[in-house]
């Protein structure tokens, strides 16, 4: 199984990062390795001059209007292809195409668009879109799993033959809605684009945590919401870490935005407390 993980963070820091320091550098350089940066998408984070929202860690990407995106060219005629990214549901009228995966013949074998921040649509070229209602100005994960071969895959998360599965979840909930559609046999992926490919107008859209794999049977899944210190568990230590970020003592390096609102505030502490009391832990 080949796994690709394109990170938006050029140099991850293992320790908490003081607000007063400016040594952190968020870049999109990872996308230039067998890929490209189109237009002027920008990396930033809470410790950066450019205050880009982040879902996990210390960096995120902002696509500043239409025509600004990153492209990865690692796929090579992949007929089994999974990807997941997080997008902040900005209120661009749209439909704003925020993700495309395709090839030289068809740029939209997989396409994800966003409308008014209240709907995410996932489609395969020529097919009906699978739509998911969203709340504006919240983080959502969008995961797709493509199998354009004539055989179903096997494993923990099998994909039927000639099928595209879409999963969308977020907005402060662990509920993930899923749908699937039949696709054109033989559809192949040679590249993937993330950002404001088209339809964003001048609206800024923030992205996070893109990951893609060729795994036949394993879903990528969501990051653990509320695991602020990134230790793989939800407990009162996460609340401490969120408090430190609110007090501007240090930044949380995990997923502190429990409410997925794009800001870290006391609501996230309440959210973490509720998760603990409900005995909800990381998957």
């Amino acid at each position, binding site marked *: 199984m080949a796994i690709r993980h394109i990170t938006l963070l050029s140099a991850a820091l293992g320790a908490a990062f003081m607000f007063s320091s400016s040594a952190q550098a968020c870049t999109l350089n990872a996308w230039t390795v067998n890929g490209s940066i189109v237009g002027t998408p920008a990396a930033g984070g809470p410790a950066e001059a450019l205050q880009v929202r982040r879902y996990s860690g210390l960096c995120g990407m902002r696509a500043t209007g239409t025509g600004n995106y990153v492209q990865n060219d690692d796929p090579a005629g992949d007929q089994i292809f999974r990807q997941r990214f997080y997008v902040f549901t900005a209120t661009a009228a749209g439909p704003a195409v925020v993700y495309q995966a395709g090839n030289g013949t068809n740029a939209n074998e997989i396409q994800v668009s966003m409308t008014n921040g209240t709907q995410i649509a996932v489609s395969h070229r020529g097919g009906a879109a699978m739509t998911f209602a969203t709340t504006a100005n919240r983080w959502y994960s969008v995961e797709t799993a493509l199998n354009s071969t004539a055989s179903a895959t096997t494993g923990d998360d099998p994909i039927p033959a000639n099928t595209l599965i879409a999963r969308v979840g977020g907005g402060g909930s662990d509920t993930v809605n899923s749908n699937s559609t039949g696709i054109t046999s033989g559809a192949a992926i040679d590249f993937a684009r993330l950002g404001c490919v088209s339809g964003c107008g001048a609206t800024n859209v923030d992205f996070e945590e893109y990951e893609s794999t060729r795994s036949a049977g394993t879903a990528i899944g969501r990051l653990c919401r509320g695991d602020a210190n990134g230790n793989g568990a939800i*407990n009162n230590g996460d*609340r401490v870490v969120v408090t430190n970020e609110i007090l501007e*003592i240090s930044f949380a390096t995990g997923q502190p935005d429990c409410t997925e609102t794009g800001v870290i505030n006391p609501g996230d502490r309440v959210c973490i407390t509720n998760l603990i009391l409900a*005995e909800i832990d990381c998957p």
Partner: protein
Amino acid sequence: MKTFATTAALLLSLALGSASANELFVTSAKSAGGQAFALDINSSGTATALQIRVAVGEGLKVDLSKCVSGLPGTHSGACGYRNGKVTVLVHSETNEMLPSGMLSIGSIAVSGASAKELSVVELLAFDRNGNEVSISSDDQAPPTRSLAK
């Protein structure tokens, strides 16, 4: 007003003035229609937050109104009863450390046919960075006497 008696172990710990590690003390006492449990901590001054889960049994009437009533003013908390367990969370809005020494957290009252001795099933303490610090429990201490009437 009802008050809890401290256990001999708790008093001994106080007398020794041990501050090397955090230790939770659970003291049980009979109350009208059930059991009441006092939660106290001998704090070493290294923790800002606590997470305590105690198994009490399912289908009981559990009064959590005083579960964090004894905390110092720097701290607050939240409690819940679910799946036969009571969760007690202690934290500070400004990540202040719990002061050193013996501190009261609060008390839990349990009543119902299947009320039994409480047992600590999870116990975590965290420093100002959200890292776990050492904490142990002595939840087997026998009650010294019934609640004062």
